């Protein structure tokens, strides 16, 4: 893509092409390239080859899982009913997707408009994380076609999972609505965008409620297994708080991670606003994440003190616990604090990566590694289970990239009509872009004043 832009390709960032003609949907989908150009750039990208390899092996196995049953694809263990699909796919993806409601809250409720360059990325990150957590869930459920049963057929309202099901379902629709304003801009349907804009506050507040509850509920699910989860990862009073609070830095650091990757690998897609503001926004997110991590470490220690579990620290499990807390939370907290103070962005980002690792490790530890700690054997996922998990994650990456390439997430959608009104708003981002393409410049923000 970078090379093609150097050779004079105009990036699709408005409904019009460089000659002022309206772009067709196909042209938008192909990023303004001809089909052969599009294929050429796809073949050039080494990531695509890796993804193709994963899909070549993974898709047949994923299909096989539905024909030959769970016993064929997974460990199918009675003692470890939840394997990688839920332990990693559901329990780790959901906390990393708390970014949507957090940035939504910061921008729409607290009025932190300086965070807006990253708001849409955070919303998208939330939507995709949840969506793929549900995909993992579908792969894991014995009878996935019955997924709507708790909504329509039979109700078990005393169950925590009932809450999770309802909240994830409603929150997914809330997130679809939140992200759809970017889609409406891209497809050219301003009425839809205005409609969403009107209910933004309502959507955001319901987002906070639903997120608080089901992030916590995922933790509360483990309070059904008081003797099975290792005491260091278990707290009957605070489990939901541990999961909720750790999801906050998890989501923020995931946005830092994704924005870092996006800025490095698809720099052409972000506009100047995104690239200029990225460091400043990252610092703000890192500050928030630091508060979250500090709180999380505190309530983790309070839980150990509350049930007097100090003795467990002096065991193999205790060392594993210390590893998780130190490498996954304490060290990143130190790194990010230092990085924020000295404005060393590489260190801040390093800390964010480690926090993401820490949150994932915590969830996998709770759901799989330390689960059934009293049983003599540990369950190691068989290769098919690992391959299916990887395949779903690869699909997540493909969909994520597909959307970032096209929808106005990292850039503002320009509308030609405003050319004269705000000509200086969005300067041309990519270096070496040809002269003729410096046409319609305006930001959609001035549009929103109309509604």
């Amino acid at each position, binding site marked *: 893509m970078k090379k093609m832009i150097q050779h004079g390709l105009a990036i699709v960032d408005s409904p019009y092409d460089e000659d002022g003609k309206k772009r067709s949907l196909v042209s938008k989908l192909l990023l303004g390239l001809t089909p052969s150009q599009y294929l050429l750039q796809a073949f050039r990208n080494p990531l695509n080859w890796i993804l193709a390899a994963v899909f070549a092996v993974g898709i047949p196995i994923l299909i096989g899982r539905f024909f030959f049953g*769970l016993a064929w694809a997974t460990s199918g263990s009675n003692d470890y009913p939840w394997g990688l699909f839920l332990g990693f796919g559901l329990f780790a993806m959901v906390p990393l997707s708390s970014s949507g409601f957090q940035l939504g809250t910061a921008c729409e409720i607290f009025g932190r408009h300086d965070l807006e360059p990253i708001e849409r990325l955070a919303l998208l990150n939330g939507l995709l994380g949840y969506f793929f957590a549900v995909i993992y869930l579908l792969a894991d459920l014995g009878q996935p076609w019955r997924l709507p049963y708790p909504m329509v057929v039979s109700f078990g309202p005393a169950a925590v999972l009932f809450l999770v099901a309802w909240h994830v379902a409603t929150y997914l629709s809330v997130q679809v609505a939140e992200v759809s304003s970017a889609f409406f801009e891209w497809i050219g349907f301003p009425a839809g965008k205005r409609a969403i804009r009107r209910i933004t506050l309502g959507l955001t507040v319901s987002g906070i409620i639903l997120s608080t509850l089901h992030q916590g509920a995922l933790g509360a699910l483990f309070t059904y297994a008081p003797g099975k989860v290792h005491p260091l990862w278990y707290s009957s009073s605070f489990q939901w708080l541990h999961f909720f609070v750790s999801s906050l830095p998890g989501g923020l650091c995931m946005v830092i991670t994704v924005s870092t990757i996006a800025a490095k690998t698809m720099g052409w897609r972000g506009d100047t606003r995104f690239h200029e503001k990225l460091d400043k926004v990252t610092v703000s997110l890192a500050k928030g994440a630091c508060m979250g991590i500090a709180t999380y470490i505190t309530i983790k220690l309070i839980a150990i003190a509350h049930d007097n579990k100090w003795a467990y620290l002096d065991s193999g499990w205790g060392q594993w616990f210390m590893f998780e807390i130190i490498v996954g939370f304490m060290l990143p907290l130190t790194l990010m604090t230092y990085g924020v103070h000295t404005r060393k962005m590489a260190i801040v980002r390093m800390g964010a990566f480690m926090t993401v690792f820490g949150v994932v490790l915590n969830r996998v530890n709770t759901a799989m590694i330390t689960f059934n700690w009293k049983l003599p054997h540990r369950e190691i996922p068989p290769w098919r289970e690992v391959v299916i998990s990887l395949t779903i994650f690869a699909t997540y990456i493909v969909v994520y990239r597909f959307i970032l390439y096209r929808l106005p997430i990292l850039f503002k959608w320009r509308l030609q009509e405003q050319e004269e009104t705000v000509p200086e708003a969005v300067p041309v981002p990519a270096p070496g872009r040809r002269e003729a393409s410096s046409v319609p410049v305006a930001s959609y923000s001035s549009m929103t004043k109309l509604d």
Partner: protein
Amino acid sequence: MKRRNFLKACLIGGTTIALGKTNKGWASGSFEGYPEAMGVLVDTTRCIGCRSCEAACNKEQKLPEPDTSFDDPSVFEHDRRPTAKAYTVVNRYQKEQPSGPVYRKVQCNHCNEPACLTSCFVNAYTKTKEGAVIYNSKVCVGCRNCMIACPFNAPGYDYDSATNPIVKKCILCYDTRLKYGKPPACVEICPQEALTFGHRADLIKLAHERIRATPDRYVDHVYGEKEVGGTSWLYLAPVGFDKLGFDTTLSNDPIISNVKDFLGMVPMVLSIWPALFSGIHLLCKNQEHDGHGHDTDSNQEDTKP
């Protein structure tokens, strides 16, 4: 006006959901089993490990042929657990003791307040008035949360089936026997009378009577009388229950009591959050001097610190 409508809707909707939820939570908290509930007392001092209960269960529940025959003693080499193919298994403990090995029959204990039932989001489980915990495979989605929740690791899952995998566990022969007042197949076949079927309340008295009559024979505890709120299956043992593979760390509270802290918090979040965050939004908006409060133009953005 719109916001007010939204808040109203939130509050009304929230409280409706919340009330439904908590009522059920509280009601289940004080439940101590149906008065007429039946149960089985297992006297492990009488069991000789003949495994005829396993064979009877296999026949009664029309389970698949086992890998090795029911006379094969090699299965005692390892601890087994109930699975989708065997609802009950007998394990051997205390092999090296001079007093001889002790055998323990394992199956679903049919809790008074079952964790599987309270964790099920489609309400597939029912605790019948006869004391059996039965399962409706027609609504089961296959999340296997009941298997996570069961403190006795009783439910097995039919992982081999691709089209209709379901949870399989002992149902106390509810469909074929218990409903008609008959004892389960395993109890009927037991040659040693190690298993006694009767009203749970009577069995507790009987168990304590046996301990009182021959105190040397038993440890002074009836497993299942109080564990996780009481179970329909009760056990007597000659040695400490922990030596027979029982989980002796279980609390006397039902599993659901661990979850109540969270369930109680749900209606609070549903009702407080909308007002709290809408309020904060109003506070933040006043500071900004712009009626719109969103996506202001880039000039204003730049002037912010």
